[in-house]
């Protein structure tokens, strides 16, 4: 059997995802050890896991360094990688929102200044509304932008809304719901068809159980 290379997003979501893979029978005990290694293998089960930065998962999969991976829908919408999107794992649920200061009143006679980590998503959303915008691409602490007057609104991921609330901001519109997706490289899917579809079946079964 050929090894299946799986890219997991580093962090809380990745750990949650790994537990799902483990429950589906793709365990790799060495991953639990406290160390700084990035690659973990379980030859018996034919899996090799590696932790990568969440926004890089799609790149690893698209370029075939990983056969499959788990990435947030936000990343897939933003980078539009040429991959198969096989499964909605229903984890890491949140939404892509437009947020602004509670006191903010939108006025249509001005160009809207939008601060975001997701310029492509923001652009697509506002062009669907035929709204003229000025995109300000930031890499973190997006909430700061409207507070300091850098932007009018932000487009960002909202999970509980707590960070927004603590900074006197509130979600105004939901652009799209987000959750973690199982993605596969298009060529790996074909050459490792048995392995990839078996994994997909197991995960799908588990997700359905959890939903019930």
């Amino acid at each position: 059997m050929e090894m299946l290379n799986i890219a997991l997003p580093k962090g809380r979501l990745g750990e949650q995802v790994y537990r799902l893979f483990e429950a589906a029978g793709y365990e790799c005990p060495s991953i639990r050890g406290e160390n700084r290694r990035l690659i973990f293998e379980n030859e018996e089960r034919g899996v090799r896991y590696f932790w990568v930065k969440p926004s890089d998962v799609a790149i690893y999969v698209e370029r075939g360094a990983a056969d499959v991976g788990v990435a947030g829908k936000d990343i897939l919408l933003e980078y539009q990688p040429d991959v198969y999107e096989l499964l909605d794992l229903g984890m890491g649920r949140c939404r892509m929102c437009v947020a602004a200061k509670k006191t903010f009143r939108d006025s249509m006679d001005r160009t809207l200044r939008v601060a975001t980590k997701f310029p492509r998503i923001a652009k697509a959303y506002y062009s669907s509304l035929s709204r003229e915008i000025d995109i300000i691409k930031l890499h973190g602490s997006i909430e700061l932008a409207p507070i300091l007057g850098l932007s009018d609104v932000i487009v960002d991921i909202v999970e509980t809304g707590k960070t927004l609330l603590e900074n006197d901001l509130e979600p105004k519109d939901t652009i799209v719901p987000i959750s973690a997706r199982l993605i596969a490289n298009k060529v790996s899917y074909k050459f490792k068809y048995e392995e990839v579809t078996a994994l997909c079946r197991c995960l799908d079964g588990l997700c359905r159980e959890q939903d019930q």
Partner: protein
Amino acid sequence: MTAMDPSLKHEEQAILRLRSLYRSYGYTHYKMSKFEEYDLYVRNKSFLVSENILTFTDTDGKLMALKPDVTLSIIKNVKEGSTALEKVYYNENVYRTSPTSHGFQEIMQAGLECIGDLDLYAISEVVLLAARSLESISEAYLLDLSHLGFVTGLLNQLGLRESALRELLGYLGAKNTSAITAACGRYGVSPQHREQLCRLALLYGTPEEVLPELKKMAAGPQMERALAELKEICSLLSPGGYCLRLDFSIVNDKNYYNGLVFRGFLPGLPSSILAGGQYDNLLHRMGKRGGAIGFAVYLDLLERFGGEELAYDVDVLLLYDRGISPAKVAAEVAAIEGSGQSVRAERTIPAGLKYRQVREVR
């Protein structure tokens, strides 16, 4: 695969094999100019893989482009009025960007086009040549076939707007069944059609496995016709024992393509190395009659395929100093080269050069 000069790079070997393969089926070489008038591409921008085009102004003030594509140039020059098919092959560089590359790239392409009043034999011959092209590069390969007639036949039954159909086609291309299910719910598609779309997205296998499944799905003349054609092509090719798979997630733009579409894959390469299909619609858009089918092989991808890096740049590094007569160095070089080894004569050891052994001329 026949043995070739090992000094040829992987992609160079592939080109030689492909050229002789296409010639052996009577395709003639089509050599074209590096430039085309920009106008040709503006009118068919979405046919191109990427919309970015390198342009420059010619001496007479005309806006010219470095070819981003070969097919359009060939169609432009097709002679009409002959009942015979036009069968040509090419091997050209094209210039385009890709979403993952930050800038223009020169991409080496080989391929062929068959244009005219197509029949089933001509179509299956092109598919056969696509399979044999892959076979000539690697023993392990897969050629995935899809038929747009079948896909659009199913989609047309849903009675949706063009934008909704495009959205569904996108999901089909990503095998994204959860998005198909959600979109079908939004557009009020019947559960039966939704089920069929999801099944079509995930279908993957040999013609023997998949064709019976398709038979169950086929409804209406368009789907029936497409299925019959697909079946016929598969059975024409089956004696060759080619690694064919059916996969309906290959969704080329239906403004250009109509019938059979296909992609070729090699293990270890992250994207398809061969892409093609029947593009009667493009032909008609450019004011020509008849049908056309063809494919391209992206040879630049082979740079990283299979072949191990050579461990040494040269077998023998031959060192000499100024005091040695040139004739003596020449004789030594000739002797080593004559013994079948490669040799590089230098006065000092070049930095970074990897050599198997070093000798000195005394």
